[in-house]
């Protein structure tokens, strides 16, 4: 068995066992003891106002009362659609197709994933495929505009910065996240 395969199996077993780490039960009556020591809060006027403004509210109305409001809303929507030449449906977050690639001419890696701020640094649905013809790992994704930090996760263990990224950001732990800038119709590495 290769070292890489053994590492992968070990990681899977370690994770499985971490999930099963035993826990002790909380002492009886713990929550009551916590609650016994708490005094009711006396919110300031400002806090009350803030909570009132940010809290959920309910409105009561009859169907008859909604007819004028609905008529105005429909008229506004129709007017807006006419002025924009029917492009209302095109508005919203525009996703741009971007391609991640990592050169690996000898296919030394067994698996490569892209993890980043756009997928909460999770490997699910971010596995790259190997392009034999060009000797590199590829993944296409649709991303919203903005700058996105990412790294490649090689063989589910090793983090690698994108050597092609023009800009990186220090993560504070000796590693550099690559940055991809997506701007409307096309992506730009910055």
């Amino acid at each position, binding site marked *: 068995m290769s070292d890489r395969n053994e590492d992968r199996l070990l*990681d899977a*077993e370690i994770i499985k066992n*971490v999930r099963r780490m*035993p826990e002790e039960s909380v002492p009886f009556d*713990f929550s009551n003891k916590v609650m016994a020591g708490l005094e009711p809060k006396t919110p300031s006027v400002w806090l009350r106002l803030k*909570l009132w403004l940010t809290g959920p509210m309910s409105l009561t109305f009859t169907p008859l009362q909604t007819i004028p409001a609905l008529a105005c809303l429909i008229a506004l929507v129709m007017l807006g659609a006419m002025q924009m030449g029917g492009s209302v449906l095109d508005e919203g977050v525009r996703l741009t197709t971007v391609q991640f690639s990592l050169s690996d001419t000898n296919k030394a890696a067994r698996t490569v994933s892209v993890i980043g701020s756009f997928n909460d640094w999770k490997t699910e649905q971010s596995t790259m495929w190997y392009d034999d013809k060009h000797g590199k790992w590829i993944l296409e994704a649709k991303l919203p505009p903005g700058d996105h930090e990412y790294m490649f996760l090689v063989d589910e*263990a090793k*983090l690698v910065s994108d050597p092609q990224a023009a800009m990186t950001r220090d993560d504070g732990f000796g590693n550099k996240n690559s940055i991809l800038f997506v701007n409307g119709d096309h992506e730009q590495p910055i």
Partner: protein
Amino acid sequence: MDIEYEAEIIREVLLGNPQPFESLVREYQRPVFNLMLRTVNDVDVAADLAQEAFTKAYARLETFKPGKRFFPWLYSLALNVARDHLRSQGRDFHVFMGDPAVMSRSEDRPDERQFVEDRLDSDKVFAFVQEMAPKYREALLLRYKLDLSMQEIGEALGITVSGAKMRISRGLEMIRDKFKEVSDVR
């Protein structure tokens, strides 16, 4: 417990009714108590520290940012309580449990497994995890036992998202190396 429900509880508490806070205590008492137990290895002290963590969370509830999950914020406060306690004892936040195998329940132990699984028994992994520096141990437990996202782990540990993923990656590597070291000795 979903974010909206937690937000509603916190709102009620801030408006002067402490009772709904008990739902949050009941929901999260187990991981907070076990964090303290891993830190001090004494049930009574761990219960006192866990109580202190919830009391501090209650006192500072005004600073909690709505729209986020309560648990990472609570865990961050609990870690500070644990650190402060150890400092007051003249110790570092780097404590080992006496015998982690004692905590292993018989129903958790695996049956016969193959190859790697045969060699990597649960007690050994539990021991390695317990012996790790807390910053790596807690990151692994938050990710794999408590299923927090990288963002939430970052919030709980007071580090960036990329810092969280590095801690987990490094934590796994440390256990792997430790295991290989033990296997080689044999």
